């Protein structure tokens, strides 16, 4: 094999989470009361638009989670097979041209030259301070000043056309699928979608997807000949960093939830259901935890992990692994500090449900505590869980940025929006200002958080019984 797969811990957890979501979807598919609120989510226009955007992020995140190590070419066939110590992901393979395209230092988006002047000695012996040409961008242009605009437009147009072609294919597939499942003629389905007559706002979703796909192809096409978002201080492509940061943001948002849920759900239900000293104990636990500043806990956790990693370098095979451990640890600590809110909500909800008559009826039947907790209480608090998880996600993505900025976030070598912003901080003070790093990180993070918030709103509208018109 030309490569060996590497499964990092966070990869495994992410796949576990995806499998759990898939399992839930399969389970809910046949249960009307579980399907109904999701169907309502599917009817929300903004929510579904946001879902399409999130899907795009998720695809990038998943592509960045298949890790592998390439085989190092051997001079002779008899030597033992050796693999490169560098752990790469599928996304890295696809964006290899960006990863290796390192300039000397800053360059602006679409620039053909560096952002700083250098002293060069011309062949005739004079010394001049000029903006040197970039090594990996716009090299095919003889006179960038004149040719660049036309070339950028042409490349972008080609990319957009490719994107639209792919989109059209996807639309055709979707229509075929809809026609199959609805037992209708695809022409009818096409008309319905075009006129937006179906319950699910397919037209809006398709337009969103179209814009996203075309945009992605444009950027990808341009990235072969330009640094579309410029380069940073050490000359790395900002576009590459931004895209690589998607996985970090997603993981922080989702894995933290995975860590937090068991604590919050179990303790919340148990506290509310059993009451008395169990309740007192759990309440005491979360009030204490809540009154310690979260940042302090996180700082303590991350710093001690750093010490541990510095003392035991032999335990980690690669940089990627140690960075991954730090990410996981960050998720863990964020989870530990953030379960209290949901736990409190669930305790309150359970206190209310415990007095309901179907719970008492179950007690009167002699159903065991575990049965009551799993069959009667848990399913009836799931809406709180869904709403909280959806709302928390965006908060966690933002928290990562803040923590990395303070220096207790993910590993500095790991691509993340927080690290990008942290590095861009100093560049903001330069004259002329270097704005692209900050703007790129901000835009991508903003789009993700906005989409997550919009979807969370749609989910809350569908799940919150107080907002529901018909019980």
């Amino acid at each position, binding site marked *: 094999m030309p490569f060996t797969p590497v499964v990092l811990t966070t990869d495994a957890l992410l796949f576990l989470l995806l499998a759990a979501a898939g399992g839930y979807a399969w389970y809910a598919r046949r249960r009307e009361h579980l399907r109904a609120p999701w169907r309502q989510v599917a009817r929300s226009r903004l929510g579904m638009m946001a879902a399409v955007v999130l899907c795009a992020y998720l695809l990038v995140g998943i592509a960045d989670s298949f890790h592998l190590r390439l085989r190092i070419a051997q001079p002779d066939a008899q030597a033992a097979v050796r693999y490169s110590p560098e752990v790469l992901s599928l996304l890295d393979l696809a964006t290899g041209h960006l990863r290796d395209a390192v300039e000397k230092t800053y360059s602006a988006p679409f620039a053909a030259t560096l952002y700083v002047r250098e002293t060069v000695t011309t062949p005739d012996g004079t010394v001049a301070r000029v903006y040197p040409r970039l090594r990996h961008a716009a090299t095919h242009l003889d006179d960038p000043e004149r040719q660049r605009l036309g070339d950028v437009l042409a490349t972008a147009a080609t990319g957009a056309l490719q994107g639209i072609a792919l989109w059209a294919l996807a639309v055709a597939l979707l229509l075929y699928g809809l026609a199959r499942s609805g037992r209708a003629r695809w022409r009818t389905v096409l008309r319905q979608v075009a006129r937006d007559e179906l319950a699910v706002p397919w037209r809006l979703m398709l337009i969103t997807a179209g814009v996203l796909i075309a945009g992605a192809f444009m950027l990808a096409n341009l990235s072969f000949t330009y640094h579309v978002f410029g380069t940073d201080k050490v000359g790395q492509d900002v576009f590459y960093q931004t895209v690589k940061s998607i996985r970090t943001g997603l993981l922080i948002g989702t894995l933290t939830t995975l860590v937090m849920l068991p604590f919050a759900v179990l303790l919340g239900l148990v506290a509310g259901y059993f009451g008395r000293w169990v309740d007192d104990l759990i309440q005491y636990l979360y009030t204490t935890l809540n009154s310690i500043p979260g940042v302090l806990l996180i700082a303590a956790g991350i710093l001690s992990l750093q010490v541990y990693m510095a003392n035991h370098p032999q335990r980690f095979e690669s940089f990627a692994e140690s960075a991954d451990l730090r990410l996981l640890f960050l998720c863990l600590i964020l989870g530990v500090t953030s379960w209290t809110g949901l736990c409190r909500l669930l305790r309150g909800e359970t206190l209310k449900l415990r007095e309901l008559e179907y719970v*008492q009826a179950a007690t009167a039947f*002699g159903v065991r505590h575990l049965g009551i907790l799993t069959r009667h209480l848990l399913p009836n608090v799931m809406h709180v869980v869904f709403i909280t998880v959806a709302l928390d996600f965006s908060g966690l993505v933002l928290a990562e940025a803040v923590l990395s900025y303070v220096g207790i976030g993910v590993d500095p070598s790991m691509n993340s929006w927080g690290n990008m912003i942290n590095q861009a901080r100093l560049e903001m003070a330069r004259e002329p200002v270097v704005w692209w790093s900050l703007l790129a990180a901000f835009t991508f993070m903003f789009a993700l958080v906005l989409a997550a918030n919009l979807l969370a709103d749609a989910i809350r509208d569908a799940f919150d019984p107080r907002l529901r018109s018909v*019980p």
Partner: protein
Amino acid sequence: MSETQPLLRVEDLHTGFGVEEHMVRAVDGVTFTVNRGEAYALLGESGCGKSMTALSILKLVPMPAGRITGGRVWLGDEDLLRYPEVAMRRVRGRRAAMIFQEPMTSLNPVVTVGGQIAETVMHHSRLSSAALRARVQESLSAVGIPDPERRAREYPHQLSGGMKQRVMIAMALAARPDLLIADEPTTALDVTTQAQVLELISALRDDTGMALLLITHDLGVVREMADRIGVMYAGHIIEEAPAAAFFSAPRHPYTQALFESLPSARHRTAPLATIKGNVPRLDRVFPGCRFASRCTHAWELCETHAPRWVETGAGHAVRCHLADPAVTRPSPVMPEPPVSAARPGSTSKEADRQVLDVRDLAVHFPVRRGVFKRIVGHVRAVDGVSFSVRRGQTLALVGESGCGKTTAGKGLLQLIAPTRGSVMYAGSELTRLRGEALRRRRAELQIIFQDPFSSMNPRMLVADIIEEGMLAQAVGASAAQRRRLIDTLLEDVGLPADAGRRYPHEFSGGQRQRICIARALAVRPSLIVCDEPTSALDVSVQAQILNLLKRLQSEHGLAYLFITHNIAVVAYLADTVAVMYLGRLVEEGPVEAVLESPRHPYTQALLSAVPAIDSPGEQRIRLGGEPPSPANPPGGCHFHPRCAHAMPVCRERYPPVVSFNGAHTARCFLYE
């Protein structure tokens, strides 16, 4: 006479909800007139559109979900539906005021009672602050609230339910309206409080001569209050008559069936007449008579042609083909009384054996205060109650809300841990059982709850709900056997076989209660605690459930502990009665003895407060005041502050048990 002058004229009123195709026509062509000074009652079951009619009159229909789509409403000579919102605000309160069913939510909890009344008064007239205060106190004392000066400064949560409803009435009457619309004004209140409030409304009407539009489902209240009655069914009025004619000779089959389905002592030996099915949904167009599908007299014409509004003389009118002289019935058989599944209730008193013996049961809830949650007192919800239930018989536990009857039921089932006392069931002491032993015993004691909507997990299929108890109690060896059992049970309680594969929310209230009964039966209990199982249901559906309970009792030899406040149901169903007041039993005995010759003054007052359909205008014993709090019961006999016969000894100690001819006992010094 000036009294026949019409005050409110509603003409062909239509109010709908939702969009065109799925529009729910809550009010669908309602026409009636309320004369000056008259009390007009709109009678109907839940979902027939009577509340919506009231809201439409004052244009209070929740917008934009619902809208008034047609008709006219004349108040005097004002066409209300043409008025803009600004003008309506002048009409509401001043010309026509409204009081609602739920006094708990109609008052603003953060404004004092006096402040809320003052606000209403100020809205209609400008007064100086001293005059305003006097006016507020005047209106509070007019509705019979003692110590109005103090009460005016209190907040709604400091008042009892009856007191709040009085405040609502005071607010409604602040501007001396010509018309008072009362939407189920006493449904949320206890029967003795209901009597007080009804009496108050009658007295105020006598004083001010205002007209009353009373909306209710309670035939007893109608009998008490109304001069004329309109019966609403599925969005329109199907019968209208003066009170006397209405109660002596109802014409519409629905009205007749309503009277027939009322439980009472007279019906004890036979099943109650029921109206089959449920009130139809109002989201469709009815080609024929709306009652046809449930009517025992219906023939083809009823399905296809809507009946005319037929005047049958003396202000009596009815919407029925039977009363229409222009319609001839194909086979004029005598209208037989609507009777379902005629099966005489078993009166056999086989095996007069006790199944349950409760001795000195008490449930106290600690009241905790302060940082360390010190116990500063106890709410004595149940305070030393003793009774026994015999096999195949029904003991009714009667009392007003807050008297501890539900707590007693849950306490004996060990759903709430009793503070002291013993519950002997089949030779074992339930209060001492723990863990597995108690769990196994639970199959034999079951409970049916009041609210059929919250007593089933909305996220489980009906079959799973019924199966849950069977699994916990290991009834039925295999899944297939259990499924067969569930099918039998569903059939037994009168539900279709496919009910098991549906969710609870797909069923109506009565059907849900049937599912709850099937669930309880699934574990083969010998005693079922029925906690007000019919109080959330309509009269016609209540009759179905009572019949079902009675049939199951005779078939399975079940014993019931029937917790209720409804005396008519007691008379129909119970073998023995225990009357509870403030956590203690005040009277106990065979049903005939207690209901015919009640001994304890509280029982007497309770029975007398029930509005009777048979004998209106009877002299009533009115109880003053409100039930005291069980956290701080009065010394001596708990009832003495409200008792007309209280003696000095009543304040000193709790009366002992006095026995009258055998099983009939009471706790009162009057008979010592």
